[in-house]
């Protein structure tokens, strides 16, 4: 793309471009304003929390003598520093101020320039690794998530979470400065062109990137769409995985089928013509209606497709980077649930050679000369596998690191791996021998982690695997980065084994109480969900955890081992031993204490937003009746008109004569839940969520969720679902809106923070 073209596009809209790299702040978009934490002092569960830096991404200098650690902070209190350490002694050397919420570090192949992606700033920070100073601030749209260079350092790509794009750049170095020129891909959406950010449209919440120099392909992990976009970088155009123009993945350009992984795609790595994918289980495919009847509904099996969360596995999938043919798919070494007693060779049970993945929640991948390193965030570990031929791997060892680790960097000369630990505020260096060294790089002035009940709850939420029967599953397996995913999961509280529920976001929950679609769970009784990770019947003699006499003994021992305490602090909840029930309460506390809301970059003062707001609040649409501002939900804590919290709905779907929306007798008896009574999910944060709506996830876009059948706003292949039994407008009145009006209404919804 010529610089003239960039200038012209910039002039068209007067917003973001990548043409003026200098350190002056003029011309840079202002930082986004963080959304405050969930609970305020007025809430009975509120307790002051210590400030934390939350070390996140990590990078090693080319010489291997310095470590850089991005201190991302959390959503409410984002950081804006990168810590520098001596890689040999782990001595802190200082901190570098960068943009707000530094999210990713990418070293240019010249070894001189370290590029920092800042989530909440409209620019990249470029650190000169010789002077360790920021020497450039290069404008780019908010939510630059990850950046990858090609091997020569002449191209770069950035995944952007706000726009669901990959931005493609030509890269040069002149006068010791990086020069990035934005390309215009042929399939860029008109609106993105006009915005000055023409990019390659990809899936929802694109995160990891991996470049294959042999095939000149870029692989993009669509975190919550459960697939990978494959981009031919010669054309900056997405590759059709199946070569059939008649098939299209939802949301992809027409005719493009993406590489489906079947589970959240956490990280990617290309080596030797093979693509390695860090993911979690796509499910065993085991029949849903088998197993014990533990909820008393008279039917066998309560977990169904996810088997009480036990088939949430941890996987390393491989694909030929050129043909995209699947290679070996490795899964967890343990499957506790129905399959644990199954003889080898049973349907759904992988062969032993593929059951080698250790730890929970493969989060990040890093490579050494001969090894693949896998950071498993949920179990606080890093694993080492040896690369074999044809995408095959051999497990070698696993080491414990700090809590909720994320980034990893490998020193190829020494065979050491460095890992940044989000919760414990430190980094861990694991040597070839397995010796580990920890160094605090974050903020422990308020006390070592954990220091409060809410922080204990963070452990239950993010490191759930420590407390599970087989150490395999966490809440984060499905609720990636606290959000949802484009997938339904079987609902343990449903009457039918086929009851499926969309995976809701775990954000804004302080104003969503009671929780769940059916409004029956509270922060004080979150045990049903926690129970699925470690059912009581799995402890004791003859059971998978026969090393503990019962579940509570297990919980107390694990807390003592990993947290150094077996009692809660008592600052928000009554002090008590960390038994199963107390752990569930702590988990509920953590869910409401942080809103985890991301600041919304979409403008809120445009004509379209104003028009959409008028429609939203009009009696004709009735949107605001059930979704009143500013929380856009009805809850125990927010109900301005005093409406009933639960809305009785018609049965959502019938499958083979079964009412799949009806609840189990156990759920109704214990929690007072009612059949077909649904709460009102908040509309906050819609701009960042996968387009997967309604309690059963049947709407694949906001247009489908809002439009009536044959509405002019519907694109070919889309289905207007604002209808029930032939009656239109059952989810707000929209049939009278024209296409542009519905676009305005959606514009307003996407402006809500």
């Amino acid at each position: 793309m010529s610089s003239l073209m960039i200038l012209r596009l910039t002039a068209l809209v007067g917003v973001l471009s990548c043409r003026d790299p200098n350190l002056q702040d003029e011309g840079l978009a202002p930082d986004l304003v963080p959304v405050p934490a969930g609970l305020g002092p007025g809430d009975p569960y509120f307790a002051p929390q210590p400030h934390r830096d939350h070390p996140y991404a990590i990078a090693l200098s080319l010489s291997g003598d310095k470590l850089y650690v991005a201190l991302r902070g959390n959503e409410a209190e984002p950081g804006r520093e990168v810590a520098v350490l001596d890689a040999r002694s782990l001595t802190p050397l200082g901190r570098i101020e960068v943009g707000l919420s530094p999210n990713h570090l990418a070293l240019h192949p010249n070894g001189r320039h370290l590029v920092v992606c800042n989530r909440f700033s409209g620019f990249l920070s470029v650190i000169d690794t010789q002077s360790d100073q920021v020497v450039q601030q290069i404008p780019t749209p908010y939510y630059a998530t990850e950046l990858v260079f090609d091997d020569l350092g002449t191209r770069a790509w950035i995944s952007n979470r706000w726009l669901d794009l990959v931005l493609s750049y030509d890269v040069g170095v002149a006068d010791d400065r990086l020069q990035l020129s934005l390309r215009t891909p042929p399939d860029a959406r008109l609106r993105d062109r006009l915005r000055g950010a023409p990019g390659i449209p990809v899936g929802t919440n694109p995160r990891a990137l991996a470049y294959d120099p042999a095939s000149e392909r870029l692989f993009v992990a669509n975190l919550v769409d459960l697939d990978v976009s494959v981009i031919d970088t010669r054309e900056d155009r997405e590759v059709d995985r199946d070569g059939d123009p008649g098939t299209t993945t939802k949301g992809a350009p027409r005719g493009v089928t993406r590489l489906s992984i079947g589970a959240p795609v956490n990280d990617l790595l290309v080596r030797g013509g093979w693509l390695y994918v860090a993911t979690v289980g796509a499910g065993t495919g085991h029949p849903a209606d088998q197993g014990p009847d533990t909820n008393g509904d008279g039917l066998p099996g309560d977990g169904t497709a996810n088997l009480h969360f036990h088939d949430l596995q941890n996987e390393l999938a491989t694909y030929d980077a050129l043909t995209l043919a699947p290679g070996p798919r490795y899964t967890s070494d343990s499957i506790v649930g129905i399959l644990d007693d199954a003889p080898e060779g049973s349907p759904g049970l992988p062969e032993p050679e593929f059951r080698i993945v250790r730890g929970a929640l493969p989060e990040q991948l890093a490579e050494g000369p001969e090894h693949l390193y896998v950071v498993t965030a949920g179990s606080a570990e890093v694993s080492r596998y040896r690369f074999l031929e044809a995408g095959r791997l051999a497990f070698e060892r696993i080491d414990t690191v700090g809590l909720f680790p994320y980034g990893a960097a490998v020193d190829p000369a020494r065979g050491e791996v460095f890992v940044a630990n989000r919760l414990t505020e430190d980094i861990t260096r694991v040597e070839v021998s397995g010796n580990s060294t920890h160094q605090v790089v974050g903020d422990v002035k308020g006390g070592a982690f954990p220091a409060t009940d809410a922080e204990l709850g963070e452990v239950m939420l993010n490191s759930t695997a420590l407390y599970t029967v087989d150490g395999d599953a966490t809440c984060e397996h499905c609720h990636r980065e606290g959000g949802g995913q484009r997938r339904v999961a079987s609902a343990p509280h449903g009457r039918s084994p086929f009851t499926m529920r969309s995976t809701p976001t775990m954000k804004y929950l302080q104003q969503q109480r009671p929780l769940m679609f059916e409004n029956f769970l509270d922060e004080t009784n979150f045990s049903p969900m926690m129970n699925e990770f470690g059912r009581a019947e799995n402890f004791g003699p003859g059971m998978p955890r026969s090393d503990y006499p019962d579940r509570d003994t297990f919980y107390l021992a694990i807390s003592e081992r990993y947290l150094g305490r077996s009692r809660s602090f008592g600052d928000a909840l009554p002090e008590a031993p960390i038994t199963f029930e107390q752990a569930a309460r702590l988990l509920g506390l953590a869910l409401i204490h942080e809103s985890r809301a991301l600041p919304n970059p979409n403008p809120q003062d445009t004509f379209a937003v104003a028009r959409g707001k008028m429609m939203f609040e009009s009696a004709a649409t009735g949107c605001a009746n059930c979704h009143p501002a500013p929380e856009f939900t009805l809850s125990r804590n927010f109900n301005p008109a005093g409406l009933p919290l639960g809305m009785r709905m018609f049965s959502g779907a019938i499958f083979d004569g079964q009412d799949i929306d009806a609840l189990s007798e156990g759920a109704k008896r214990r929690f007072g839940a009612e059949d077909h009574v649904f709460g009102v999910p908040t509309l906050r944060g819609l701009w960042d969520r996968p387009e997967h709506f309604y309690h059963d996830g049947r709407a694949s876009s906001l247009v489908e969720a809002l439009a009536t059948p044959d509405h002019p706003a519907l694109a070919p292949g889309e289905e207007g679902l604002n209808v029930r039994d032939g009656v239109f407008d059952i989810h707000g009145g929209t049939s009278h809106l024209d296409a542009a009006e519905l676009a305005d209404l959606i514009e307003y919804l996407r402006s809500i923070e």
Partner: protein
Amino acid sequence: MIPPRWPYWLWLSALACGGTEAAPPVVVPILDPTTFEVQVQPMLVRLCAQTACHGADDRAFFLYSPFGARAIRSTDQPALTGAETSANLEACRRQLEASPDLLESPLLKRPLRPEAGGGPHGGGAQFYDRVDPSYVLFACWILGGGAEGEPECRP
């Protein structure tokens, strides 16, 4: 099925690369009638076709609308007729013919907010900026983008 046409990105490329040094190409836009009837016309009727504005038949850019100017006298025909829709489309085409640079055509520029490079417009600003979904919908149709809500053209 999308009829063959100049894709909208070629228009933008021509615009961006043309600058002031070279004359932009003169290409007669192909204005998809289905997209116009289903998506564009309802927006124009709502935003532009009031009788005091472009619903007045003495205006150079004149539009029929169901509750304004009509070519028929029948009171039992609330929707625009095919002839009226064709006339509205032709009115748009005439506005574009004089504009080799379509993004600078009166249709797209005048209703745009002055702060975003638009105007002057007696009816005030109708599009906040060039990312306004109504503007995008309109521009996509004018520039020859996909018909009937193709995802790449969706606002």
